[in-house]
């Protein structure tokens, strides 16, 4: 190269690099041409003149170009540039770097709104599923009871048998003994439920109330929203404290949210009471599934719960607050010691003496057993929601991966310009975390709606039963934690992949290099997604099958065609004479209604989660201390006509009749299981049983039925006449040939006609009441069904994306095939085959996983096998159809490939 050319090349360095790269070569050639022409025209002198003219102009142009380059760079920085800080200097603080990353991440998300929206929607679904179930667990089990102070120091305690298998609640005297002597507790409180009817301005309201010891609120640490709670004097003298504390809700609805309500007189169970206080909003007492609306002092028991007594009856539940510095174990030891002393030194009925061990648990709003059952159940649902979250995160992870590949050149360029690998990974990770963070807010919104929907699923039975599931700060933190963790896990791989190891390969050409490995990983991810969603679908299918199976199970009685209404005469201030007169009159009125074929009363109804256990003895008088072997039986007190109403046939002997009155010989009807067990091969009629301290005569044998659960084994059962074992709370049951729900107005009218002051009872049907035994299945089928559908949708989208991606990559290959004579159908079949191969693998893996997983839910499935072939086959079928559709769409696009376009552009 001549000297002048080399000098020119050096001069070109004045120009910015981009300008040089673009035009440098051409400029050198132009100079060479000009120099050659000049030499031909006028020799060396002309060349020199050329130089003289050229250098200043070149320098000027270079300066202008440099200035332009700077201006462009500044403009790009201001208007959402593609560039990010290439490198950080050491002086940058961590916070500044983070702020920078965050700003850049926000810009990146804004730049591709569709990608961002889809990713956030997917994360919201997954995160929302988990958050919803966690809300439920939190609300029922984890959340400290609303209105309690220092809840860690609160404890629940019960008297249990030595092996903890059975327990007994406390009598009033036992409670006083503990409360007065326990040094380990700063306070011990007792409570029981009380059916109350509160009349404000002459209008009665049936409310669920609690009858509580005077220190109930102070032990919990609850403060009144208005007025005051009970004072010590109101805990001493029986019947001396006609005062009531009402819930915030009751105050708002029935007392007009008026602060003047304090001091006002209302009628509680027929007696005047003074409203002294209002509990804080959200305070629900210590048994959270039931919404308590009023609290009355224990000393008013004789008036409000005359059926109980303040001596030996065990009807109180107790809880306490640990004294400062005392451990729970020390408290347990002291309470056990006090109980043993109590058993030794008092004339407590012998039946309770075996319960001398104390069990202490958290005071969480549910008894320990119920909490365990609930936790077990919700853990399963939580697992299902977790699967959805994994599927969703994997989806977003592969979206991020795809984008990381698209941005590989950009990343490589930055690396070349000096950005550190760690810096780039951090940037990409910030982007994914930001996505997941926004997704967690979406998840909170999903959880908000979903818990609202779940709360609205009616719980059969008691109308006070309601769940308060709405998310609280704890749920919010959980949601954040989950989303950031998943964001870290599922964002790290794409980030590392995006930054990669080898710059030069990526700067050259990227797509082909690692595509084989990547498509294998992509396939594995899709198969995993498909398999997990199949597991969910199978679970949903099994629950649905169980629901059907349960509905078809013969309960041994006929729940259809029966209306039922619950009454508690105690809550009206009725004595037993007045109550029995009322019940007889009501029955007569209802029996006269057209269509009604039979009427009766019972204390409990089968399959309504309201069993009561008792014991009978084949020999001896049936006293608790007679040392004779006892048999655990279910007991129900019923009126004549009961068996006709519920449709249980009498196999032998007779049912109860009007002649079985309070003063006549005590009689019982046993079920077949008990009859066979006690007198195999012989007639039970005319035999006697020891029951509650006396011999009772067996007059009939009734056919077996299901009493507690649909899955129970044959259970011994005893029916006793209500006339001989009276109870203040009874259920009216009416069999009708017409629609039982339509009887409600008739029953309400009859009640009003008999006593207009009574609060209207809840009238429902036996069919609806018994549906509570299927409630867990219904809940589980609904939740897993929704989760399964979401999971399948996400997996289908993932499959679609993968096939579409693969089709896009293979456009050229497909073009060649078509050019070589492949038919549309061939291409279609080829792509479909790829999708179905993945789906098939997903089915196989999913079926194996489901086979292992469904064992966990076997306890909820009644007679349906956890490996039910129909469900597995059916769900796999649904699954294959969806997978086929998801691969058919891109397959059709592939089949429409025009070979010319494909070969030119591909």
């Amino acid at each position, binding site marked *: 190269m001549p000297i002048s050319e080399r000098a020119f090349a050096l001069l070109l360095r004045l120009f910015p690099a981009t300008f040089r790269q673009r*035009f440098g070569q051409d400029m050198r050639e132009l100079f060479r041409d000009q120099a050659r022409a000049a030499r031909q025209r006028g020799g060396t002198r002309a060349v020199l003149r050329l130089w003289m003219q050229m250098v200043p102009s070149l320098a000027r142009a270079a300066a202008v170009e440099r200035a332009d380059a700077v201006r462009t760079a500044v403009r790009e920085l201001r208007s959402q540039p593609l560039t990010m800080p290439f490198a950080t200097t050491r002086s940058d603080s961590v916070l500044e770097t983070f702020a920078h990353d965050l700003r850049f991440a926000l810009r990146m998300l804004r730049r591709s709104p569709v990608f961002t929206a889809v990713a956030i929607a997917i994360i919201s679904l997954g995160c929302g599923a988990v958050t919803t179930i966690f809300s439920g667990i939190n609300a029922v089990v984890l959340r400290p009871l609303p209105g309690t102070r220092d809840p860690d120091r609160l404890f629940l305690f019960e008297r249990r048998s030595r092996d903890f298998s059975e327990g007994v609640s406390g009598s009033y005297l036992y409670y006083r003994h503990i409360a007065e002597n326990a040094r380990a507790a700063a306070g011990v409180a007792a409570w029981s439920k009380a059916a109350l009817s509160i009349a404000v301005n002459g209008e009665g309201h049936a409310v669920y109330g609690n009858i509580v010891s005077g220190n109930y609120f102070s032990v919990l640490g609850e403060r009144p929203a208005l007025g005051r709670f009970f004072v010590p004097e109101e805990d001493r003298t029986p019947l001396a404290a006609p005062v009531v504390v009402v819930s915030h809700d009751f105050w708002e609805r029935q007392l007009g949210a008026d602060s003047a309500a304090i001091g006002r007189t209302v009628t509680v169970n027929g007696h005047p009471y003074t409203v002294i206080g209002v509990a804080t909003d959200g305070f629900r007492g210590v048994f959270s599934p039931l919404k308590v609306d009023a609290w009355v002092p224990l000393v008013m028991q004789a008036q409000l719960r005359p059926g109980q007594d303040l001596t030996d009856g065990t009807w109180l539940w107790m809880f306490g607050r640990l004294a400062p510095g005392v451990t729970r174990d020390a408290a347990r030891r002291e309470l056990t010691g006090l109980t043993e002393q109590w058993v030794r030194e008092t004339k407590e009925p012998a039946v309770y003496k075996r319960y001398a061990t104390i069990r202490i648990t958290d005071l969480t709003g549910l008894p320990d057993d119920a909490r365990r059952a609930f936790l077990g159940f919700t853990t399963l649902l939580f697992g299902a929601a977790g699967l959805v979250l994994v599927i969703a995160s994997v989806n977003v992870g592969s979206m991020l991966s795809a984008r990381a590949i698209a941005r590989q050149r950009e990343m490589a360029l930055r690396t070349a310009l000096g950005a550190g690998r760690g810096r780039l990974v951090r940037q990409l990770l910030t982007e994914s975390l930001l996505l997941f963070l926004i997704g967690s807010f979406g998840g909170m919104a999903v959880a908000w709606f979903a818990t609202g929907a779940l709360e609205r699923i009616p719980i059969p039975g008691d109308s006070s039963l309601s769940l308060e599931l709405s998310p609280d700060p704890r749920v919010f933190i959980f949601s954040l934690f989950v989303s950031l963790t998943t964001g870290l896990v599922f964002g790290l791989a794409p980030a590392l992949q995006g930054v990669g190891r080898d710059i030069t390969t990526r700067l050259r050409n990227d797509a082909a290099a690692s595509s084989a490995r990547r498509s294998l990983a992509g396939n594995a991810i899709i198969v995993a997604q498909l398999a997990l969603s199949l597991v969910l679908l199978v679970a949903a299918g099994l629950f649905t099958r169980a629901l059907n199976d349960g509905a078809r199970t013969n309960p041994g009685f006929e729940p259809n065609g029966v209306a039922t209404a619950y009454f508690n005469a105690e809550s009206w201030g009725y004595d037993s004479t007045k109550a029995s007169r009322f019940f007889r009159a009501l029955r007569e009125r209802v029996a006269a209604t057209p269509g009604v074929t039979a009427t009766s009363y019972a204390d409990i109804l089968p399959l309504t989660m309201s069993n009561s256990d008792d014991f009978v003895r084949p020999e001896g008088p049936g006293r608790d201390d007679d040392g004779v072997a006892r048999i655990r039986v279910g007991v129900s007190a019923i009126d004549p006509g009961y068996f006709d109403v519920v449709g249980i046939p009498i196999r032998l002997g007779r049912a109860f009749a009007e002649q079985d009155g309070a003063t006549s010989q005590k009689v019982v009807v046993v079920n077949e299981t008990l009859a066979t067990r006690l007198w195999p091969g012989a007639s039970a009629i005319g035999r006697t049983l020891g029951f509650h301290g006396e011999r009772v005569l067996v007059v009939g044998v009734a056919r077996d039925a299901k009493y507690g659960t649909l899955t129970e084994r044959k259970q011994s059962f005893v029916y006793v006449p209500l006339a001989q074992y009276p109870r203040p709370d009874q259920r009216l049951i009416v069999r009708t040939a017409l629609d039982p729900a339509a009887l409600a107005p008739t029953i309400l009218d009859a009640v009003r006609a008999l006593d207009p002051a009574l609060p209207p009872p809840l009238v429902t049907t036996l069919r609806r009441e018994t549906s509570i035994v299927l409630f867990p299945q219904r809940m589980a089928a609904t939740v897993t069904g929704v989760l399964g559908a979401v999971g399948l949708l996400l997996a289908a989208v993932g499959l679609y994306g993968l096939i579409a991606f693969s089709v896009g990559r293979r456009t050229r290959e497909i073009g060649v095939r078509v050019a070589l004579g492949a038919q549309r159908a061939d291409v279609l079949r080829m792509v479909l085959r790829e999708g179905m191969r993945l789906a098939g693998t997903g089915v196989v893996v999913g079926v194996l996983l489901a086979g292992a997983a469904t064992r966990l839910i076997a306890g909820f499935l009644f007679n349906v096998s956890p490996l039910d072939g129909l469900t597995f086959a059916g769900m796999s079928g649904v699954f294959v159809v969806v997978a086929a559709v998801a691969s058919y769409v891109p397959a059709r696009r592939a089949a429409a490939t025009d070979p010319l376009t494909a070969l030119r552009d591909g």
Partner: protein
Amino acid sequence: MQRPPRAFLPLKPLDLQLLLSLAAQERHGYGLVQDITERTEGLVALEPGNLYRVIKRLVADGLVAETDRRTVPELDERRRYYRITPLGGRVLAAEIARLRALVSSPSVKALVERWAT
């Protein structure tokens, strides 16, 4: 989005020369320099620096484009050729029309006659 041709007017002298030169045929850098030097009788001098700055700007504005043609077979060199784009053609036509209107307006004619000598 393309700007309308009028938005580019009036053209700078160098831009006008360059577009005129490319309007006839595709040319590479040296071809342009030669053509323009000839047409302007040496009045418009083009150095490598300013030529390519102008080209860069005209390419960015969409008036000029690179062609696929690169090689001059007899010289066995790789050079970029440039062509005028349709937009460039319209801009050029608009500028010529503007100049023609300027030149042929009676008042301008009178001025030229008055000052020509």
